[in-house]
């Protein structure tokens, strides 16, 4: 075997092996079958010339040149077949068949007659085919088929294909095809021009590019591939070329200087250069990719920064909206959405979307897609699944594809907290048409998992707030229920004389007592206003807000006194107030009602109708965080009621206080809301003493 046939032999073996592997990768795929045929055609071509270059016998060389040319003849239709099946151009199928038939017609002539091949040349590398009379005609047919395929590839390359992965694949195949066309330089030596036919190298490159395009799961950006290839080539040409060059051209010089071991110098240099070469390659590759992928890297950094900040967002809905906004804007995605696990309903529910045409279907937890996400724990790309399905025809994959179509998802990125699938991001394609790279998907996975944490936090906070809201509501309702219980009682009492008056009029009770009618009617009118006041008290408490402010205690007490000032005067009740103006209490909007109603309770209470005293004092306790307010009155005591324990609404009468206890209840409710304490001391004949303790700041409860 000659040294010139060695690279061609390697090419032949390579073609055969790739063809074999591609075929068995998917025997049902027309793309794989046609590409395998291309590889086998190339194998025959290369192998024929391996023998032709190596043999010393002209007849043997001619035979194998004919075999090689026969192989070469079928490269055009098989390449065309491959392009048509890859692009799924059904309209071109008949032309593919025609191309095969044409070459099937020519092939026997190539083997048996001198029309296309009339002999061999003897070149320095070995024997080579000599073009026959009709060879130019063959070239026209050959290139016609080749260019037809090239043309439909070109058209497809220009089209706006909706699938980015597909678009990138077409780019690769287009470039591969252009490279393959360069292999036509091998026809030049057939016309007597001594020119080593290295076209086989282009065909090998064609095989490598197409194999990559159709086999690889995660196709790289083509610019990145070019950059890596060029950098690799340059670096290793220098790394290998320099020592070899020195070894070849510096041999005599080195022998002179070093002696018989001159070879150690280039060998050592090779070792050093190889080691340095790998670092140089990585360094240059990084630089090149940083430049090429500057935009992408910038987006990734933005996403990584966003992943950090989203954990700080507590508002659940704001968080979800921020995530989809960041995705659509930073990555330039057509649409983005979030689905979250709804444990109660055992499904993944649609939560938020931004951008186009997304559906809002919920997904059951038993769905194939969910099972797949739980198992794979990585992003799912619709186009990759479709390729998988075309190879394996797996029903499970089909179901996943259908679900993704229903969700209008081009990519799904799962979010996990430990082993729990919290939810997933539903993403559309990039508006630029670029594919999602491995780096994109890694960054998205990171963002998705950070989002899961942030979402869990926000959900927890929301649930806690809802719970607190419910507790507050329940607390308020309990208070309102008690309030209404006492209020109802008083209201019914107040309505009784009004009802009695009206019934009396109806029954003619006042006919003999007209003066009574006037006074009863007047009382009824007064009572209606009193009812209005009562209603107002209750409503005032119920509607008071949660806004917090600092209140001057003395001012609150004065306000309470001022509210009932006419009663103080009318009932001749004296007051004594001993409260420092320096005491401030932090409280809700209802805090002023405490003092208003304590005073009302005392004033309207039994035993204060015609005189009495209300005494109010306050002091800061030793803990310096609590104020104690004491209000005493000289009205009726509650001893009897406490002792008797007579009940109303299931609670002891004493707890309800005087007058049905509406004011008592409001005062108690306010104290409770401010986490204070409310005590009543009542002694026979000595009125009632209220001892109220309030934290100066209710956020720090009183001791």
């Amino acid at each position, binding site marked *: 075997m000659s040294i010139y046939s060695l690279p061609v032999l390697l090419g032949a073996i390579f073609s055969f092996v790739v063809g074999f592997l591609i075929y068995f990768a998917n025997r049902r795929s027309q793309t794989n079958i046609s590409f395998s045929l291309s590889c086998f055609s190339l194998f025959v071509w290369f192998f024929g010339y391996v023998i032709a270059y190596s043999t010393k016998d002209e007849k043997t060389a001619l035979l194998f040149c004919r075999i090689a040319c026969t192989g070469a003849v079928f490269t055009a239709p098989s390449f065309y077949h491959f392009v048509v099946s890859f692009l799924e151009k059904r309209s071109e199928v008949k032309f593919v068949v025609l191309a095969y038939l044409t070459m099937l017609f020519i092939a026997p002539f190539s083997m048996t007659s001198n029309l296309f091949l009339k002999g061999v040349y003897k070149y320095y590398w070995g024997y080579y085919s000599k073009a026959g009379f009709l060879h130019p005609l063959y070239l026209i047919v050959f290139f016609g088929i080749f260019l037809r395929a090239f043309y439909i590839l070109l058209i497809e390359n220009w089209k706006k294909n909706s699938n980015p992965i597909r678009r990138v694949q077409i780019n690769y195949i287009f470039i591969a095809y252009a490279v393959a066309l360069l292999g036509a330089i091998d026809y030049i030596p057939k016309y007597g021009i001594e020119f080593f036919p290295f076209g086989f190298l282009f065909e090998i490159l064609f095989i490598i590019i197409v194999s990559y395009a159709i086999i690889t799961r995660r196709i790289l950006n083509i610019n990145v591939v070019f950059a890596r290839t060029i950098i690799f080539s340059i670096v290793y040409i220098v790394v290998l070329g320099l020592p070899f060059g020195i070894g070849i051209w510096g041999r005599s010089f080195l022998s002179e200087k070093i002696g018989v071991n001159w070879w150690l110098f280039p060998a050592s240099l090779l070792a050093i250069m190889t080691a340095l070469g790998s670092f140089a390659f990585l360094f240059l590759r990084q630089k090149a990719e940083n430049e090429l992928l500057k935009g992408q890297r910038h987006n990734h950094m933005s996403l990584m920064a966003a992943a950090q900040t989203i954990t700080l967002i507590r508002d659940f809905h704001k968080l979800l909206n921020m995530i989809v906004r960041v995705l659509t804007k930073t990555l330039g995605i057509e649409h983005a959405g979030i689905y979250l696990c709804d444990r109660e309903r055992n499904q993944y529910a649609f939560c938020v979307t931004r951008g186009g045409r997304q559906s809002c279907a919920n997904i059951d937890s038993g769905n194939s897609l969910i099972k797949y996400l739980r198992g794979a724990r990585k992003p799912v790309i619709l186009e990759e699944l479709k390729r998988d399905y075309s190879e394996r025809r797996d029903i499970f994959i089909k179901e996943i594809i259908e679900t993704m179509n229903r969700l209008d998802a081009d990519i799904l990125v799962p979010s996990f907290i430990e082993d729990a699938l919290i939810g997933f991001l539903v993403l559309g394609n990039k508006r630029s048409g670029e594919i999602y790279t491995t780096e994109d998907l890694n960054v998205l996975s990171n963002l998705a998992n950070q989002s899961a944490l942030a979402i869990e936090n926000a959900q927890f906070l929301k649930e806690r707030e809802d719970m607190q809201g419910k507790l507050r509501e329940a607390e308020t309702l309990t208070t309102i229920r008690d309030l209404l*219980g006492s209020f*109802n*009682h*008083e*209201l*019914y*009492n107040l*309505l*009784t*004389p*009004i*009802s*009695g*008056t009206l*019934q*009396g009029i109806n*029954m*003619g*009770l006042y006919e003999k*007592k007209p003066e*009574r009618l006037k006074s*009863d009617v007047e*009382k009824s009118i007064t009572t209606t206003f009193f009812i209005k006041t009562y209603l107002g008290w209750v409503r005032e408490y119920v509607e008071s807000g949660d806004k917090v402010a600092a209140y001057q205690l003395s001012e609150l007490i004065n306000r309470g006194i001022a509210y009932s000032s006419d009663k103080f005067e009318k009932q001749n009740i004296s007051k004594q107030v001993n409260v420092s103006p320096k005491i401030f209490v932090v409280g809700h909007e209802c805090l002023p009602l405490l003092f208003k109603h304590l005073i009302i309770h005392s004033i309207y209470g*039994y*035993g204060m109708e015609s005189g009495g005293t209300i005494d109010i004092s306050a002091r800061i306790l030793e803990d310096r965080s609590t104020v104690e307010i004491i209000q005493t009155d000289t009205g*009726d005591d509650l001893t*009897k*009621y406490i002792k*008797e324990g*007579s*009940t*109303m*609404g*299931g609670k002891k*009468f004493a707890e309800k206080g005087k007058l*049905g206890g509406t004011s008592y209840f409001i005062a108690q409710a306010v104290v409770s809301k401010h986490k204070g304490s409310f005590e009543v001391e009542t002694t026979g004949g000595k009125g009632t003493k209220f001892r109220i303790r309030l934290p100066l700041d209710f956020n720090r409860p009183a001791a």
Partner: protein
Amino acid sequence: MIKFLVVDDEPGVVDQVRDFLELRNYAVVTATSGEKALELAKKENPNIVVLDIRMPGTTGIDVLKEVKKNSPKARVIMLTGVEDEATKNMAMELGASGYLTKPYSYSELLDMSRKLINEICQEEGIK
């Protein structure tokens, strides 16, 4: 003649009920406090007591207990401003004969009174 004792701390209410019952030719005495009610209960020995539960000082429950102690046959109709099963049950256990929630209609009071009067008449063999 059937005699009523009407007890309520609201004088207006007491007067209205008295007028209503007197129109129907019943004898009526009134009290506006529990203490006064007990006094009158002993003195007048009413057949039917119409009694407000909530009053200052001696409560309606106090009066009920005393009345039933001194005059077991007396009928007591309790009046209250709130529908409270516990209080109602307690009053009934203490011997109350009926229970009306304010604001009640006089016809309700009349119906209940008539029922009680029939019982009294049957007991005493009066037609």
